[in-house]
C-alpha cells in the first residue's frame, strides 16, 4: 500500500508538470516594450518553483517507498545534526531561492516602477469609480483642469468634477470611456480612485496596478501593437465589479490624432 502511494505521488507530480512543460496554456500576446521582462521573470519563477516542487515530490516518494514497511530489528538513523540542522538547512535553501528571484526580478520591476517616464510621454489621467473607468486627456493647452469632487455630474458626462465655467484649463479636457493611445509612444498614466479600491489590468500590456483611494499613483508603458484590448478591474470593488471594464484602443499616430479631434468637437 505504501509503495502504491509513492507511485501515485510521482504520477501526480509529473502530470501537474506536464501542461507547464509543454506550454499547453500560452500567455496572451505581449504588446508592450517591458512585457518580455515580466514574461521571462514569470518563466524563471515557474522553472525554479517547478524544479523544487518536482524534487521535493520525488524525495518524498523515495522516502515513502523506502520506509513503506517497518523493518523489524533495523535501527532508524537520524538526519545528521538532528532537527535543528535540518530546519536551518531548509531556511537557507528556501531563502536563497526567494532572494535569487528578487535579485533577478528587480530589473523588470524597476523598469516599470523606479524609472521615471520620458519627459515627452503622453499624459493621460485614469479615474476608477464604481463601476467604470474614465480617462482624461489635457487637450490642446496640454494642461489638466483642476478636479472638484462636488462638481461631479455623471448625467452630464462630467465624471471628473471639472469646472469649465470658471476654469479655462478644463474647457478643452477630453474625457473618454475608452483609453485611446498612439502606438510606440510612451504613456504616462496618472491614476486615482473616486470611491473604493480598484485595479487597472490589461493582460496584453503586462500592467496591473491598483487604484487606492486617497493616493495618486502612476504607471508608464509603451504599446507596440495596434488593436483593441480589454481593461478589467481586478480588485473586488462591489456588486458591479464583474461588469467593470473598459477598452484600450491602440491606434496609429494619425488615427489617434483624428480621434482626439473627433472627441474635441463633441465638447
Amino acid at each position: 500500500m505504501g509503495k502504491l502511494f509513492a507511485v501515485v505521488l510521482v504520477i501526480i507530480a509529473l502530470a501537474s508538470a506536464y501542461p507547464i512543460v509543454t506550454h499547453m496554456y500560452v500567455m496572451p500576446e505581449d504588446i508592450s516594450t517591458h512585457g518580455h521582462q515580466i514574461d521571462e521573470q514569470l518563466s524563471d519563477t515557474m522553472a525554479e518553483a517547478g524544479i523544487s516542487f518536482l524534487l521535493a515530490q520525488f524525495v518524498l516518494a523515495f522516502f515513502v517507498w523506502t520506509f513503506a514497511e517497518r523493518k523489524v530489528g533495523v535501527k532508524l538513523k537520524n538526519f545528521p545534526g538532528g532537527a535543528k540542522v535540518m530546519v536551518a538547512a531548509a531556511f537557507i535553501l528556501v531563502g536563497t531561492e526567494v532572494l535569487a528571484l528578487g535579485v533577478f526580478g528587480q530589473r523588470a520591476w524597476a523598469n516599470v516602477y523606479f524609472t521615471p517616464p520620458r519627459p515627452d510621454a503622453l499624459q493621460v489621467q485614469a479615474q476608477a469609480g464604481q463601476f467604470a473607468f474614465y480617462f482624461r486627456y489635457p487637450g490642446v493647452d496640454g494642461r489638466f483642469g483642476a478636479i472638484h469632487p462636488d462638481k461631479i455630474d455623471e448625467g452630464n458626462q462630467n465624471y471628473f468634477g471639472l469646472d469649465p465655467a470658471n476654469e479655462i484649463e478644463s474647457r478643452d479636457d477630453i474625457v473618454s470611456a475608452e483609453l485611446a493611445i498612439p502606438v510606440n509612444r510612451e504613456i504616462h498614466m496618472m491614476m486615482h480612485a473616486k470611491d473604493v479600491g480598484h485595479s487597472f489590468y490589461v493582460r496584453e500590456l503586462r500592467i496591473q496596478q491598483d487604484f487606492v483611494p486617497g493616493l495618486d499613483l502612476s504607471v508608464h508603458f509603451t504599446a507596440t501593437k495596434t488593436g483593441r484590448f480589454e481593461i478589467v478591474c481586478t480588485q473586488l470593488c462591489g456588486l458591479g465589479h464583474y461588469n467593470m471594464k473598459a477598452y484600450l484602443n491602440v491606434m496609429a499616430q494619425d488615427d489617434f490624432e483624428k480621434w482626439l479631434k473627433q472627441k474635441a468637437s463633441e465638447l
Partner: protein
Amino acid sequence: MRTKQAFITGVAILAAITMTSAVPGGGTVSGKVTYEGTPAKQKPIDMSKEPSCAKQYATPPPTETVVTGPNNALENVVVYISTGAPDEPPPSQPAVFTQKGCRYIPHVLALQVNQPLQVLNEDQTSHNIHPLAKINREWNKSQPPGTPPIVDKYDKMEFIPVKCNVHPWMHGTFAVLKNSHYSISSADGGFSLPDLPPGKYTVTAYHESYGDQSQEVTIAGSETKSVNFVFKAKPY
C-alpha cells in the same frame, strides 16, 4: 353619536374632494417652456463597457440633463400646480419607469404621492436603480435581466434624482407630486394643465438642471390661460 359625527365629516371631506379636484370642462393653463442663453451641449454617451446596450444604437445617444428643441424649446420640464389645488388620493394604475438600452424611459417620470411605481428592466444586463431621495426614504435595488418589476411608492412630495449604480451615465428624475395637475414639457416646450376648477393657483415649472420658477394664475370658468416660462441656460 360619535359614529354619526365621523360619518358626516367623512361625507363632507368626500364632497370637498369631488368639488375641488379635476372637473372636466374646467379651465386650462397651457403654454411653453423656453430657455434664453446658451445651454450645455448634449454629448454622446459612450456605452462601450456595456456592449449589449451600445449595440442598440447606430450612433451613441446624447445626454439628457438638458434637452432642447427648435425655437429655444426646453423639454422635460415638470409643470405642476404647487398651491391652490387640494392633495389628491393616488391613482391605482402604476407609473412605469423602464430601463432600456441603458437609459431611463421616460427621463423624467411624474407620479403622485403613494401612487405605485414600477421599475422595469428590459435590458440584457443587471441594473441597480438608486433614487437619491432626501425627504423620502432612500433605497437602491439590483435588478438582473428577466426579473419581475420593482414595485415601490413615495409618500412625500419630492423631486428625486435617479441614478444607476452600475452604469454611471444613467440618470433620470422622479417628480413625486401631490395632485394630478401636472404636465411634462414636450419636444416643442409645450405643456397643458386641463380640467382646473375656478380658483387661484400657483403654477411651478421644475427643471433638473435649471431649478424651478413659479407664476400666479387665476382661473374663472372654462377659460384657457396662457403661462410661459423662460429658464436661463448656462453653457457649463
